[in-house]
């Protein structure tokens, strides 16, 4: 199987700048074109294990990131984005090109993949049981997700939980984990062997770095998982780790608010979300120390046991 690692950095850069590559991330194929060096650097570093479809005739999404022309490029170089003929984001400083690529991939899926219920939540799995971690920015979702993954949980997604309509299966969308601000150094210390992209400062979300997904999670990107827990994490400085049960109907309403396309899917979205809650135990989780959080997660009892 051809992967990104099959190309040298020079070959990858040339290919991205000319024909582009068809990059497979889970159920999706994205045609990526860019001559911007930091995009090629990021893909080379963080997507090394991902399949590239050499003879692909079809791509779900077509993303181009190109450095903007004109006089500005000599003073404040910017990168422009085109995604299937749409520019969902304003041009950004060229230093933010790789985060922009990541945000665009998220946007493509959350805006288009309506054969799934798409929830803004991380999802990890161990022993066949998946934990869905929905939470607003600042709740520590990605930090917790990164810590769990560093301790052997399989990454399905840091950002988008995809529930297959009809079956209720969770479909992996394994991609780099986006960490912000203080979380970057926290995970650097917690998981020293982790591979990070360079930190990009001054984005709209603060300082951003992306953590490489484990090769095993990438290799198992075709294996769906069953939901077992819905856990709403909340980081609170100094707090002891604590799980508090949430009534299922309340969890349903909260999860619905975190879904991108719940309203669009109508009754199919209602049924899919109901299946997730039916299959899961729901909790509020407050934590501050990652070791304590990992310990609690390791002792979660699956539903029905």
């Amino acid at each position, binding site marked *: 199987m051809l992967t990104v690692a099959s190309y040298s950095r020079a070959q990858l850069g040339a290919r991205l700048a000319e024909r582009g590559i068809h990059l497979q991330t889970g159920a999706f194929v994205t045609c990526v074109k860019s001559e911007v060096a930091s995009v090629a650097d990021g893909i080379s570093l963080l997507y090394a294990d991902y399949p590239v479809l050499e003879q692909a005739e079809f791509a779900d999404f077509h993303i181009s990131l190109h450095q903007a022309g004109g006089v500005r490029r000599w003073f404040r170089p910017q990168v422009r984005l085109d995604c299937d003929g749409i520019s969902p984001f304003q041009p950004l400083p060229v230093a933010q090109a790789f985060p922009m690529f990541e945000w665009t991939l998220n946007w493509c899926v959350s805006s288009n993949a309506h054969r799934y219920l798409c929830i803004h939540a991380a999802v990890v799995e161990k022993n066949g049981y998946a934990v869905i971690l929905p939470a607003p920015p600042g709740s520590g979702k990605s930090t917790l997700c990164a810590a769990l993954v560093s301790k052997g949980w399989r990454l399905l997604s840091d950002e988008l939980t995809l529930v297959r309509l009809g079956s209720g299966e969770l479909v992996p969308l394994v991609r780099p984990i986006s960490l912000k601000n203080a979380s970057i150094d926290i995970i650097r210390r917690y998981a020293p062997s982790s591979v990070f992209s360079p930190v990009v400062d001054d984005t709209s979300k603060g300082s951003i770095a992306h953590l490489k997904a484990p090769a095993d999670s990438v290799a198992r990107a075709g294996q769906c998982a069953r939901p077992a827990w819905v856990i709403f994490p909340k980081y609170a400085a100094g707090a002891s780790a604590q799980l508090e049960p949430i*009534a*299922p*109907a*309340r969890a*349903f*309403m909260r999860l*619905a608010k975190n879904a991108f396309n719940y*309203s669009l899917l*109508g*009754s199919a979205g*209602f*049924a899919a979300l*109901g299946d997730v*809650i*039916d299959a899961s135990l729901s909790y509020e989780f407050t934590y501050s120390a990652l070791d304590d959080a990992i310990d609690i997660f390791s002792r979660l009892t699956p539903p029905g046991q």
Partner: protein
Amino acid sequence: MWRLIHGQTLQQRRWGDETVLYNDLSGDTHLLGETAICLLHALQVSAHDEAALVALVCARLQVGADDTAAHETALLLASLSELSLIERCAC
């Protein structure tokens, strides 16, 4: 008289004494208690006058059909009407 609005299928999931219900007409999802669901199920079968609904609620809650029960039932019916789940009818 009250009746369920045509097109509402009352797709719902119930956990304990709480139910989430999909509103087929608005696309919204509502978190409802047992009494509201009791009323909706009765109106799904057929239209009822308000007195019959008060009696139904009181029987369900095992309380006397006094003015308070009638007032609370009327408020609940009004709320369900605002959500476009039920409507008054002349039938």
